[in-house]
């Protein structure tokens, strides 16, 4: 099982993070200095590292503005809410929230990736799951604050699940 995490490069405008920061301030969470969002792809199937590299480079990232980190997991050890990849900004104080669609929700982006992988001549049967990870830099946030941010701004609990990472 492989995890791919895709970030916007540091020197490109972090418009999503800036926007979210305003919303977070509006809700009264003033201790956060910066927010960054990454996209998470979890791939399970008969895959080798080089397949994942091809998928990520040719399909998932915009090489000009983004970069990726690939990590391999042991299927037996992996837990869906444990996508622990360090953020690219070296900071001792950050918290994060991972958000995923629930299994019963059809993610059409996943369907499109499946088709695109066939176009890349990857014929293996691969299960893909897509999520987002939000990094909050500044003072370490309490689980309660992170839960509040998740529920009020990031997650629709009807169709999504989330995990806070301290």
């Amino acid at each position, binding site marked *: 099982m492989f995890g791919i995490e895709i970030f916007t490069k540091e020197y490109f405008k972090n418009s999503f993070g800036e926007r979210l920061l305003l919303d977070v301030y509006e809700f009264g969470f003033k201790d956060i200095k910066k927010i960054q969002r990454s996209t998470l792809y979890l791939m399970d199937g008969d895959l080798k590292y080089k397949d994942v590299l091809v998928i990520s480079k040719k399909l998932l990232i915009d090489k000009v503005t983004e970069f990726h980190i690939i990590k391999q997991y042991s299927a037996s050890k992996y837990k869906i809410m444990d996508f622990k990849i360090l953020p690219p900004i070296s900071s001792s104080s950050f918290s994060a929230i991972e958000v995923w669609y629930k299994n019963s929700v059809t993610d*059409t982006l996943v369907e499109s990736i499946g088709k695109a992988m066939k176009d890349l001549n990857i014929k293996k049967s691969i299960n893909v799951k897509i999520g987002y990870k939000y990094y909050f830099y500044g003072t370490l946030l309490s689980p309660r604050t992170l839960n509040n941010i998740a529920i009020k701004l990031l997650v*629709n609990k*009807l169709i999504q699940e989330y995990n806070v990472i301290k």
Partner: protein
Amino acid sequence: MIIKSIVGCKIIKLLNLSYKQLNEFSRSMNLSLSLLEMIKIKSYFKKIARNPTDIELETIAQTWSEHCKHKTLTGIIKYTEKKNGRKKIRVFNNLLKETIFRATIELNKKQCLSVFKDNAGVVEFDHKNAVAFKVETHNHPAALEPYGGAATGIGGVVRDILGVGLGAKPVAATSVFCFANLDIKKSQIPTGACHPKRIAKGIISGVRDYGNKIGIPIVNGATCFDDGYIVNPLVFCGAIGIIPQKRIEKKICAGDLILIVGGKTGRDGVHGATFSSINLDQQSNINAVQIGNPIVEKKILDVMLKARDLNFYKAVTDCGAGGLSSAIGELAEQTGAVVYLDKVPVKYSGLRPWEIWISESQERMVIVVERKNKKKIIKIFNEENVEATFIGEFTNSKKLVLMYKNNMLANMDMFFIHKDLPKPVRYASYTIKNEQVQEPIKLHSFEILKLLKYLLADLNICSKEWIIRQYDHEVQGQTIIKPLHGNTIETSGHGDASVIFPYTIVKATKKGIVLSNGLNPRYGKINTYKMAASAIEESLRNAVSVGADIDKISILDNFCWGDTDKSKILGSLIYAAKACYDMSKAFCVPFISGKDSLHNEYFIDKNKYSIPPVLLISAIGIINDVTKTVTMPFKKENNKIYILGVTRNELGGSMFTKFKNIKNGIIPVVYYAESKIIMKKIYETISKNLIESCHDCSDGGLAVAVSEMSFASNKGVKINIDTVKTEPKDSLTVTEIMFSESNGRFIVEVKPENEFKFKKIFKNLIFSEIGYIINEDVIIFESKKHKLKVKEKLSVLSNFWRRNINL
């Protein structure tokens, strides 16, 4: 209650159930069927001497749902209307047929080619082509998941256009929203509800992401704000398409094959049709949420139209609410059909037969194919990588037969499914409130100016540029009049209506399609008749403002109401429907399609949140020459400004009274005879190039209308309030003249050299010259009679108006 199960299908022991058990069973299965309906079902199966299967019950529940059968509006209603202690009683056997549809029948206009019978209304464009128009509501899905619910709203209405006749080519879309106040304090939000900003952002993004990706310009819309939508936002999505007139009728014969194309079937959207018949609560079901895929829909759209032009199929419809059950059930109503559910392509294994049958998975169309075209049509879809599978055929049995792995799971008479729905008697009442003119409002200049600034900055009036600019309103290159008008990107203002010039589809045409809307929920809180009448008149005014001919306009209705099981709420809807009939007849403008969304109530911790009544009227007009159109920004200094129509003391429900917290006031009346003749004359003057700009007076009245024209052009203006014609004469204060929201009024700009001809056309009508455009950065409203002068820099007022909705 289950007797036995065959291939995932259960036989339900229904025949021995008591009334109480029938009720409980309907509730536990999420069927949303009433006791009366359950009794009817029981007696049908008793007659055929067997118990039903779960898939049969699901089929009936879907077909008889409020969403599919419009049970409230087509049922029997005993209506009592009360005014000043007097009662009038009327019985409606079918409210829709006796009001909205009746007006269309009685008007019998040549332009109506297919109305109230297909997926959209169809009107004549030219002697060979027609235009299909449909506006859908998607409130319940958007309330649960704003982004997904709104995205599938636009996807669904585009499929309606694809599913009209043999398929129309979509050329434009519309979107109208009702949200709660975006500035509401967090403490005022009910526990468990999302902030309106988050809801609005999700909904707008959903429409944007689906609409832009599918390549259809979103050209017209409106956004209304009221705290009544705090939990239940409203989402209206519309689409228009061009269809050759020879392809308007569907033909279905026994032996024809059923082809499903597009997306695979999953569990998403299961119980969507029955779900929209109930009130929402915090436990609402995840299965009702659907996720859309615009790329798949775009591919279906392109291939389907290709297949249509090659005559490869005879009928088509979309899979909307109720999924295959609704689509095939309706197509086979007159014939009968057998469907092999195990042939339906599914997203994953484990789906039960009834889930396959009623799933509302998006981006699917059902096509009726003659056997001789079987291979050809599959080839064309395969070539474009669109999934297409034959899943059954039409028969002459007049029965619906569902098969799964060689087992017959359903066998029911089409007549029972479609015509045997019981019609309960509902009761409705409405008390017409007496309206009183407010005490005369006399304000000083500085107070008027302060108020004008407040009004311009109000969410209901201020610039919606942030929303509009997210949509691609120019894709396809046919949008002649766009939603934003102005000299530069910094000075754009809202247009009254948009115009599509479909020259890529209808070669060598000069004709265009005008799209506009009218929406006045504030009036509905006091008088739903006046709300409906005003919405109709406003939609016509908007269309006429850009150059539409009222004789070639058609309208659509979208009723969004609270819980119509309550007599007073149902009564308010009937009162509005009566206005629809009266206004349609008075303006000779037919209704061609509509869609209602009832039960817009939400429960949180036993607290009920119900929306105010809303009627959206969407208008479509055909114009002969797209070059004979005008926009709303002022054009040139020294040109004269005229007001057409009468200003009355009608401040009831207005933006002004909202700010001043004035409870009294007369809700604007529609004086249709006055209004209609003005609209005809405007068309004449625009056709003769005698008007430079035109804008209707609506929210905020004359003061706001003039200011908006000024902002969009960055040109100053001087208005003499004393010259505005009022009724009764000289009875209104300056404030009342400036902010009255009387219907039937337009502000127009006329070149000095055209004034003579212009006045000649409007001779004997009520109009007056009220000012002129000036070469200064100021807006001036002056009354020498009352010694008042309201003067402010255009740029200052404009900044209030551009308060920047930015989510």
